[in-house]
C-alpha cells in the first residue's frame, strides 16, 4: 500500500552478516544511529574549531547546548555529578536529539526515507538500561552497602519498613521501563500521526475539485504537526536527559 503509516518503521538490512548464529546485519536503523552520532561529532568539531573568544553563530549553538546540559546536571546532581557524568549525559542528549532530528527528514540523497531509531523500543530500552545499570554500578561502587538506603527512606517505623522496601524496589525497577517508553511512545505516535494526516492529502486530492479544496485541510494540519514534532524531538531528548540526571543523583546520594 502506498501510504501505509507503519511502513516507515520497517527495518531493511543493508549489509547482511551474522555473528555466532545471530543476525547482526547493518540495517537502515543502524545507519540512522551512526548518522546521528557522526553528525553530532562533526557539528561540534566544526563549530568549536575557531574556539573564538567572541563566538560565531555555530559556536554559540555548541556552547549553548553545553551550558544547557551543564546547568541541568548541576541543578539535579550538584557539582559532583557534573564532574562525573557530564560527558555521559551530554552524549546521551546529543545522540537522542540528533536521531530524533534526523528522523524528521522524509528522505535525502536517494534514501527514500530516513529511519528514526528512537521509534524502536529496542533502542530506547537499551539507552534506558544503560542509565539503569550505570546507576546501580556507580551507586554500589561509591556508597557500598549504603546504596540500599535508597530503598529505605529514613523516619519510617520499623513495623511498616518491609512493606515500604518492597514498594520502593518495584518503583526502582519500573524506572527503566517508563524511561524507555516515554521517548519511544512520543516519537512513534508523532510519526504515525504525521503519516496518517499526510496520507489524507493525496487520497482527497484524487476526488476532483472539491477534494483538492478539502485536501488543503490535512495539508495545513501536516505542516502544523511537523512544527509540533520538532518541538517533541527536542523536548523528549531533554526529558530523557533530565530523568537521567535525577536517577544519577540517586546513585551519588542514595539517602533521599
Amino acid at each position, binding site marked *: 500500500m502506498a501510504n501505509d503509516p507503519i511502513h516507515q518503521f520497517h527495518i531493511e538490512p543493508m549489509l547482511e552478516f551474522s555473528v555466532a548464529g545471530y543476525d547482526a546485519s547493518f540495517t537502515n536503523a543502524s545507519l540512522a544511529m551512526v548518522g546521528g552520532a557522526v553528525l553530532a561529532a562533526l557539528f561540534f568539531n566544526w563549530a568549536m574549531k575557531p574556539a573564538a573568544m567572541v563566538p560565531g553563530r555555530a559556536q554559540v549553538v555548541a556552547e549553548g547546548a553545553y551550558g544547557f546540559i551543564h546547568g541541568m546536571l*548541576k541543578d539535579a546532581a550538584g557539582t559532583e555529578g557534573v564532574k562525573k557524568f557530564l560527558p555521559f549525559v551530554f552524549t546521551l542528549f546529543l545522540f537522542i536529539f540528533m536521531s530524533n532530528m534526523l528522523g524528521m527528514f522524509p528522505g535525502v540523497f536517494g534514501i527514500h526515507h530516513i529511519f528514526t531509531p528512537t521509534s524502536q523500543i529496542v533502542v530506547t530500552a537499551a539507552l534506558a538500561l544503560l542509565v539503569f545499570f550505570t546507576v546501580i554500578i556507580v551507586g554500589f561502587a561509591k556508597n557500598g552497602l549504603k546504596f540500599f538506603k535508597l530503598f529505605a527512606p529514613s523516619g519510617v517505623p520499623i513495623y511498616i519498613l518491609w512493606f515500604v522496601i518492597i*514498594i520502593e524496589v*518495584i518503583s526502582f525497577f*519500573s524506572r527503566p521501563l*517508563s524511561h524507555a517508553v*516515554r521517548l519511544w*511512545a512520543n516519537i512513534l505516535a508523532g510519526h504515525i500521526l504525521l503519516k496518517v494526516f499526510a496520507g489524507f492529502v493525496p487520497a482527497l486530492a484524487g476526488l476532483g475539485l472539491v477534494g483538492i479544496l478539502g485536501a488543503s485541510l490535512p495539508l495545513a494540519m501536516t505542516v502544523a504537526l511537523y512544527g509540533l514534532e520538532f518541538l517533541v524531538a527536542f523536548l523528549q531528548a*531533554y526529558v530523557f536527559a533530565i530523568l537521567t540526571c535525577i536517577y544519577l543523583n540517586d546513585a551519588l546520594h542514595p539517602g533521599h
Partner: protein
Amino acid sequence: MADRKPPEDALSDLRRRVNAARGDGPSNDPPPQSPASLALRYGGEFGAAIIVGALLGYGVDYFVHTSPWGLIVGVVLGFAAGVVNVVRVAQSYSRSNPIDPRAPSVPDDEED
C-alpha cells in the same frame, strides 16, 4: 577618551555585569511542560510500576511454584508502587511550579 578604563578593569566590569544579569539561579529555563506530556508522564509512571510488579510476581511464581498467588500479590504491590511513583512526580512538579501567592482565590461550590 580620558576616562577610558584600562582593558582589565573593563573586562572584569563586564564579567560582573554579566553575572549580575544572569543571577545565581538555574542557569537555563527548562522548556514548559505541556499538559499532554505531563499526563503521559503520570500514566507512564503508574503503568510501568504495575507491569514491573506483575513481572516480579510472575517470576516468583515461576521459581517457587506458588501460582497464581505471586502474580496476584505482585500486581497489587505494583499498584501501590505506581501510586507512590505518581505522588513523587506530582511532588516534583509542584516543587518546580509553586502556586503563585498573588493568584486570586477560586470560589468553590461547596456549601459551608
